[in-house]
């Protein structure tokens, strides 16, 4: 599987070339163009496992009920994928480890990767982030997207990330939702609120912008519903 990321970081798209026999799973709506030689099927679950229940969990997580599966026949083929919002894309190759990903950031993965929705690690409802989190495991390439530019942070010790700016992180990291700064006053008035404190060793991928922040800026100019 050959993955090329185009037009980073402003208007990223992914061009995936599937060799004969390969399969790609993507969120519904991500495909913008594809070779006629690829077969497209749509289900509520991943090819080998899952069920309608898994699809419903995804819907609750704000993702679509459906997933698209692209299969390459004898000649292979290419598919172009894009996210709804302008922004960046990231390709990561999972090698047996686990990745926790912001639900809206998932674009596609190869068949060797398991995607499960409804990860409950950030149990604190106080985190204020209505994003849901996915759990990716297995082996194979994964494509993620974000509204904003994606930058990695190699954590070795401790690092703080505003929860609305997390795209994905390796599950080798420990994390704690804490208040920003040293006091509640700073957390509330400083506008940061609760942040995620990562510790240990691993990578966190952060996004420079988030859709909610931009939406709050545009929102007051829109007419009431």
């Amino acid at each position: 599987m050959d993955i090329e990321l185009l037009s980073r970081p402003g208007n990223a798209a992914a061009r995936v070339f599937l060799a004969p026999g390969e399969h790609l799973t993507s969120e519904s709506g991500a495909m913008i163009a594809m070779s006629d030689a690829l077969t497209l099927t749509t289900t509520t679950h991943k090819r080998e496992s899952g069920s309608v229940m898994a699809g419903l969990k995804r819907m609750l997580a704000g993702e679509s009920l459906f997933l698209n599966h692209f299969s390459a026949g004898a000649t292979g083929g290419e598919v172009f994928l894009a996210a709804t919002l302008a922004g960046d894309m990231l390709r990561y190759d999972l090698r047996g480890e686990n990745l926790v990903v912001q639900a809206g950031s998932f674009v596609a993965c190869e068949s060797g990767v398991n995607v499960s929705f409804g990860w409950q690690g950030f149990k604190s409802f106080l985190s204020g982030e209505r994003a849901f989190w996915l759990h990716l495991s297995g082996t194979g390439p994964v494509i993620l997207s974000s509204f904003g530019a994606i930058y990695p942070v190699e954590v070795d010790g401790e690092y703080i990330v505003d929860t609305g700016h997390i795209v994905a992180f390796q599950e080798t990291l420990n994390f704690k939702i804490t208040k920003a700064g040293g006091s509640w006053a700073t957390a509330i008035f400083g506008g940061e609120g609760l942040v995620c404190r990562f510790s240990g060793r691993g990578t966190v991928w952060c996004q420079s912008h988030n859709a909610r922040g931009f939406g709050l800026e545009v929102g007051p100019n829109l007419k009431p519903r």
Partner: protein
Amino acid sequence: MKTTIEGAPSFAYLHVDLDPGESVVAESDAMSSMSADLAMKASFNGGLFSGLAKKFLAGETLFVNTFTNTTGAPRRVTLVQTTPGNMREVQLNGETICLQPGAYVASTPGLKLGLRWAGFVSGIAREGFFKLTVSGTGTLWYGAYGELLERQVEGEYIVDTSHLVAYEPQLKLKLQLAGGIFSSLFGGEGFVTRVEGRGMVVIQTRSVSGLANWLNPRI
């Protein structure tokens, strides 16, 4: 202090590497990630009354955060803005620069943030009654929605009002209709800002009100 602007021009963000003892002041909620051992403190933007004035009159937040490196080694804080677009770094040596509401991202502690009256027409045209002024000696980072373009004004210049980001304080701004009544209503331009004098203006290539006007009929 070492700073780099990455992600430009579509989604610019700022990495600030603070040396031991250094601080940087940033707009509230501008921090996207930072070393865990950086000290972060919120304070009223210029004092309580000044902060309130800036919040309600100039569209800035009431608070700013000051990040200080109290450790013995360089530490990083990454600062971002809410709108997708470019960011710009400006060195001020005692001079003043005026910013539109919401453009301010961060500055070094030596700079003072103040308010300047923008005129009744400006407020009525929903551009805000006040503008933010930044003065002193230090570095300022500001951003916008879209790319930032700089223009030297010699005499007169017209800028679509929602596209003005920053300008030098000696320039006089006047609001006027774009063309006649017909152009203003149907040409889609409405109010424009007439800039008079000699100095620099910085404009953004997109505008939030433009986006909102595009979205509204579709909601």
